[in-house]
């Protein structure tokens, strides 16, 4: 039997793509080497952020926001989306100047969702933040969702509509078979498919065929505290610091950022993991108390790690392979794919269904890593 679409990788991107492809009436097989959402999807802070996105990602992030608003209802399961706003703090005048320049640059490109606030307004909204913080960039309609709830909501909705899912089923190889089809050699037998979608996250680089990609594997680190008194509604980033911080409805403070642990046993899908780096956990926490001093008294409950694929320019690889017809990439989200997932999966599914959306995916084509492709500057991305 040949399925219409084989999706390699049962993380959030893969599960969204599966759900959306199934809605178009395509037959869908998801192939997951470990368990769904084992890596980057579980080591996500759940930020739904259009703030401070790379210029190329802004259209995606803004369009995704609209999907998040009705998502729980659409899937029939809560995803924990809260429109809390997102803020990027400035700790000095130089940061404020950078923010002003960014707002101006966005306006030139026709974007006005990022708003600058000064120190007084900041203190009124965040009484707990350190006195030296002097302003912030804000997107009010941003927010956060619950990564695990989101993953399971898509998983359930997919299974309920006929998506087939194989877990602990590693892919050993993908070969062309016959006219425009693929034979996928897996730990649970051969799977034949008309299209293959590469949603393999940290392992996405293994499935690019001849497409030129230089991806790095990162062990994302997440930390959560015991509940503290409510002090924070928006999700916080800080200019010039590796930090993302939010408080959940239950009062727990979730601290992430770009401090990485150590990828281990990456070649063994069941053993692959990230080991935490205690020194860099300490560095993350030092950043957190620098802007919220009272958190020094919070209790650290748990830290964990998952593996993610990081691209050299910080942008995902999204869209058809340039060398292999029928292969579509959606990986390398470089630790900020969560917010984009509901949209990206839909774009890939639409493309599978009707060939639509090639233009919107063009900036993220794997072709940009070709010898003649210009290198993009990573701008102000805080992951």
């Amino acid at each position: 039997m040949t399925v219409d679409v084989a999706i390699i990788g049962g993380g959030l991107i893969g599960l969204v793509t599966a759900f959306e492809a199934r809605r178009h009436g395509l037959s869908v097989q998801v192939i997951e080497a470990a368990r769904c959402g084992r890596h980057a999807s579980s080591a996500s802070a759940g930020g739904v952020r259009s703030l401070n996105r790379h210029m190329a990602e802004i259209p995606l992030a803004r369009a995704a926001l609209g999907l998040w608003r009705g998502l729980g209802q659409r899937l029939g399961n809560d995803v924990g989306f809260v429109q809390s706003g997102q803020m990027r703090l400035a700790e000095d005048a130089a940061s404020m100047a950078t923010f002003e320049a960014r707002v101006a640059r966005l306006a030139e490109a026709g974007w006005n969702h990022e708003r600058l606030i000064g120190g007084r307004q900041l203190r009124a909204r965040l009484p707990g933040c350190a006195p030296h913080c002097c302003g912030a960039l804000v997107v009010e309609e941003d927010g956060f969702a619950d990564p695990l709830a989101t993953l399971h909501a898509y998983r359930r909705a997919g299974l309920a509509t006929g998506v087939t899912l194989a877990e602990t089923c590693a892919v050993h190889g993908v070969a062309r078979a016959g006219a425009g089809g693929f034979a996928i050699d897996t730990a649970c037998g051969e799977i034949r498919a008309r299209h293959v979608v590469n949603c393999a996250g940290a392992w996405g680089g293994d499935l690019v065929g001849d497409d030129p990609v230089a991806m790095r594997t990162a062990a994302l680190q997440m930390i959560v505290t015991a509940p503290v008194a409510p002090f924070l509604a928006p999700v916080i980033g800080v200019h010039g610091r590796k930090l993302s911080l939010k408080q959940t409805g239950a009062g727990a403070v979730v601290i992430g950022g770009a401090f990485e642990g150590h990828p281990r046993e990456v070649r063994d899908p069941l053993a692959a993991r990230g080991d935490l780096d205690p020194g860099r956990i300490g560095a993350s926490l030092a950043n957190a108390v620098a802007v919220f001093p009272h958190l020094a008294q919070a209790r650290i409950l748990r830290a964990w790690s998952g593996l993610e694929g990081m691209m050299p320019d910080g942008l995902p690889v999204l869209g058809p392979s340039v060398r292999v017809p029928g292969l579509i990439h959606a990986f390398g989200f470089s630790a900020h794919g969560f917010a984009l997932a509901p949209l990206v999966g839909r774009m890939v599914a639409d493309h599978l269904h009707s060939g639509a959306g090639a233009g919107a995916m063009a900036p993220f084509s794997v072709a940009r890593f070709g010898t003649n492709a210009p290198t993009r500057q990573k701008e102000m991305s805080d992951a």
Partner: protein
Amino acid sequence: MSKVIDLCVIGAGPAGLAAAARAAQGGLNVLLLDEQPAAGGQVWRNAGAALAGGSMPAAQAEKAYHGAAAALRRLAASGVDHRAGATLIDIAAPETAPGPGPEAVVEITWRAPSRAEAPRIRQTAAGAVICATGAQERPLIFPGAELPGVMGVGAIQSAYKQSGLVPGGEGVVLAGHGPLLLLTLAQIRAAGGRVAAVLDLGAPGAMAAVARTLPRALIGDPALMARGAGLMLRRALSGVPVYRRVTGLRAHGADSIEAVSFSSAGRATRLPARLLGVHDGVIPNAQVSRLLNLRHVWDAGQGAFLPVRDTDGAVAPGIWLVGDGAGIGGAEIAAMEGEQAARAALARAGRGPDVQGPAARHLTRRRAARRLVEALYPPVPMGAYATDDALICRCETVRVADVRAVLGTGIDGPNRVKAMTRCGMGPCQGRLCANPLTRLISAETGRSPDAVGALRIRPPLKPVLLMDYLAPETMPEVSA
């Protein structure tokens, strides 16, 4: 990372004390990390002070701390760097090393006892690690178990050993089964306390298993058997009402426990209670072996997962797991295992021949004796008490019904249940729910505990303050 120490021993109970002292005597420099304020672990808690005539009469202390005095003297003479009050935060095993060798260094993250030196969270690199983190009581899941006044008999034991305290006054009820329950009963009565009733939750019909294991047990450890017989005798003589074949245990009360209800031999009974001590045996504290991602196999006799070990207790190059933390055996087996692992560590460091000491033969015999205890006191089946309204995760207020509700539709393992219900996400890090959760899922789905698996354990092993991680220059001024 400044300097690499030869060996880090985690836990200063019988196993850890034996391992640390043996390794130090063999010439290794040894760091001994232990959470308690004084060496001895749970079984020899506060032994030093008690034996010096501190908290209890000398005759009682001699009985309670059999073997402790010699172990403590040996530690004191060994030159081991013993850090009392230190908390283990994380252990990172070397990345699958090509082979054993001194280059495989284990990174240990721990919290220093004192706040004086920031950061309190320290990292130590060790050429080898012996983990001896001991046992914990098996959580008993029944409605009302979370009420103040309901506690494991282990907690009653701790209060007795630490401060010579026993529960006094009316309304003290003990429920459960096993040697520690009997020991607690005997100690309470010896100290002049009163126990209103004992509710025997033990399974009837364990006698066939006992007959199978008793002969080897008697050969293996006559002393243990004699002490066990003495305890049983004392209970018979104590005049405490014993309710047998107890089912449907439930604790009642508004702000704290006021009564217990149960059915004994089919008859519904309700007793006033001010303190309910419960016990369903002890299981390995598996936090460390889970943190290390070791392979575990379910042991039906102990009703718990045990890490898979080599004969000398090795679980990875340079890492050993010994004592009750690797499989319940009691203090004497633990000490033997500690010795054995220390010999192996010495051999690996090129400081001694790689021979198994005489301990190996003794170990086999003592373990046979342990099987009798397991046969006498099999774990209380989950179905007998885990009613829908019983809390399985106290930290996050997750009830048995919440777990039952999410099972199915691919939610079939503890980590999925954790993601869906928050069971195991609280400050106890799954200590109180990991074992019952595996057993509950196994009972509900009909799959073996091995197929069900267990909760993943995340660092920090114990909650720590954020400021414990901070160096002085990053410490905010407002913090107290």
